[in-house]
């Protein structure tokens, strides 16, 4: 009987544990699926050693360079692939391949890859996360290797830590206010430029089936991205919220909800959901980014919409988004730099930006990128007011505090004063 007990115990233990482990990465070590993707990296290192042994690049096999990116839009993937193919055709020393990692898994895969030493050679990552990975020590110092003097200051700041450049901005975007021009005309409203005007306009546009304004309010980085322009417009900073300004921003958003001109459902809407509500005519105005424009033009070609600056409280403000290239140290650094030099040339940047619906991080290119009446043009203007999040290694924790505070006032679970005080306490614990 005892033996049966032991057998049963073993089976049950392994069964429980197996199911637990099966739920996927509860810990840091569920790295198995990541392995096949990254095994190019060591191979690249080996072949690089062989080649440096003497043979000219013409004879040997091309060294593999791997890129990880998270764009799910097909147009983005095709455009990136085209640049890569052109690069591969233009020389024979390196062979670049790109791998798609879903956005939700991207940070996880980079973390797991870092601890398991299985990383790509180049990562194209969300700019607010850049500082955390610099802190982790997996990015190569690129100071002096790229000319970023013409780039928007915010984009360069997002990949600069302690005065050193750890990445190259891929492209820039920011948030602005989209409005449904037909609805505005029908309600006899003019385009709002201040918070008071925005609230009045939103009220006038709200009907039984239409809410005046929508902005993505999910409780994560995406939500924070959409909240900070309102916070910054008052003069508050990301790290100093528990004051008159911070509370005014929280109160403004809460008022929009309480007066019914913004739906509480926004806390479950991603930026894509917000855009879908807008083109379906359920929402009259929305805060969103330029990357939605290609989809909006193809899905709702007849919708009459325009873009303007986000209305201001004390000053115009927007948030800088976009991706940065980063070179992984320990990978094939020379090959990565060679590809990046190619991909950041003016011609390639122009091609990528046009296909992506992004604005170039290079001011000179951005200035002439769009026609004056292009829907992208307001975003170029808004970019002058756009600031980056962080850069700070602990930004994810600060971001969590900010999105929590806004979610608290939207759901009415805390007053703006309490939410601001709570967020400040969390942020002080991180930053000071």
């Amino acid at each position, binding site marked *: 009987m005892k033996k049966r007990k032991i057998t049963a115990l073993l089976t049950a233990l392994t*069964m429980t544990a197996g199911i637990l482990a099966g739920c996927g990465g509860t810990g840091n070590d569920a790295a198995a699926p990541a392995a096949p993707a990254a095994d190019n990296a060591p191979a690249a290192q080996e072949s690089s050693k062989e080649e440096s042994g003497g043979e000219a690049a013409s004879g040997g096999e091309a060294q593999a360079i791997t890129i990880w990116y998270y764009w799910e839009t097909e147009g983005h993937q095709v455009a990136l692939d085209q640049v890569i193919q052109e690069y591969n055709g233009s020389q024979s020393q390196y062979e670049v391949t790109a791998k798609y990692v879903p956005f939700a898994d991207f940070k996880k895969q980079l973390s797991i890859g870092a601890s398991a030493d299985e990383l790509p050679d180049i990562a194209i990552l969300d700019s607010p996360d850049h500082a955390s990975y610099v802190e982790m020590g997996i990015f190569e110092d690129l100071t002096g290797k790229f000319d970023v003097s013409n780039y928007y200051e915010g984009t360069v700041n997002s990949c600069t830590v302690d005065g050193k450049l750890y990445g190259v901005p891929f492209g820039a975007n920011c948030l602005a206010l989209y409005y449904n021009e037909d609805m505005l005309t029908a309600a006899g409203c003019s385009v709002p430029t201040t918070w008071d005007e925005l609230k009045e306009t939103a009220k006038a546009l709200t009907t039984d089936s239409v809410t005046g304004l929508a902005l993505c309010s999910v409780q994560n980085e995406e939500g924070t991205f959409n909240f900070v322009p309102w916070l910054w417009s008052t003069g508050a900073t990301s790290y100093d919220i528990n004051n008159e300004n911070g509370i005014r921003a929280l109160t403004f958003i809460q008022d929009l909800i309480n007066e019914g001109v913004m739906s509480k459902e926004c806390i479950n809407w991603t930026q894509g959901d917000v855009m879908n509500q807008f083109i379906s005519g359920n929402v009259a105005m929305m805060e969103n980014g330029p990357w939605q424009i290609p989809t909006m033009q193809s899905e709702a070609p007849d919708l009459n919409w325009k873009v303007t600056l986000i209305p201001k409280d004390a000053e115009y403000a927007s948030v800088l988004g976009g991706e940065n290239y980063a070179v992984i140290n320990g990978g094939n650094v020379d090959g990565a730099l060679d590809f990046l030099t190619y991909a950041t040339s003016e011609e390639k940047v122009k091609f990528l930006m046009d296909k992506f619906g992004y604005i170039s991080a290079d001011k000179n290119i951005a200035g002439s990128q769009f026609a004056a009446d292009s829907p992208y043009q307001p975003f170029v203007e808004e970019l002058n007011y756009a600031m980056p999040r962080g850069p700070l290694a602990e930004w994810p*924790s600060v971001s969590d505090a900010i999105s929590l505070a806004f979610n608290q006032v*939207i759901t009415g679970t805390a007053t703006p004063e309490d939410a601001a005080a709570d967020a400040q306490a969390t942020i002080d614990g991180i930053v000071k």
Partner: protein
Amino acid sequence: MAKLKKFFRYENVGLLFVLPAFLYMLVFVGYPIIRNIILSFQDVNAGNLVRGTKNFILFDNYLELFKDSVFTTSLWNTLRYTVLCLVFQFVIGFALALFFSQRFALAKPVRGILLVPWMIPVTVTALMFKLLFATDIGVINFILRSLHLIDQNIEWLTTPGTAMFALICANVWIGIPFNMILISTGLTTIPKELYESASIDGAGKVQTFWKITLPLLKPTIESVLILGFIYTFKVYDLVYVMTSGGPVNSTHMLSTYSYKLSFEMFKYSKGSAVANVLLVILLIVGVFYIKATTEGEEE
């Protein structure tokens, strides 16, 4: 030699059969768990994941967790979610199993169709329930309004209390077929003669249920409940898709909070500490299960 022969007696051969599975589990499950436990005693974050020293801070992560209100909420959420889901799944599943054990036309095909919720991927179910419970466009509010049960739309997924209710509804829907099919199988193992002789002795339906069906189903019921507990307690995908732990952290479970700490906030050690709390609770449940089943066998 004699000893070796003695070892390979009938009873011990069982252990050998378990060996390959055990070795597999040791490498692919045991090792990660041990690493995870070590990780939870260290202070690993973005700064020292790759380089630098990982200090052992022993139970500091755990002590901090119990002061963290989001953690205590997730612990409480996971427990009440599991218990409530189990109660409803089990009772409804049992009732359906009894119903379909009657012989009537189409009993078998209909029972098969009822398995569909169990076969649909959880993310699909989650999206479906997210739309059903949507405030303005959701079918549930529409029905309630049409029946004049409510005047204003209920904000199911954007109010802390009702969001948990919506999650439980979704999971009960998924879990009913699982309970039903296992109990149905259990019912078929009860010899029909018992019911026949009971009815000859004059026992009523209720009496046969309490005196024959339930006692003979005891092993099945125990398995159903323990497996149900484990499946429900480790919920991740359903919550991630429906609420992502919101609104305002009110529906975080141990699993979602562990993921958030580890992979969104780079607090790897704290995240693994949460995962270990999950593991310990499931192990305790597992031990109770073994006790219950082995006692039953020894009677």
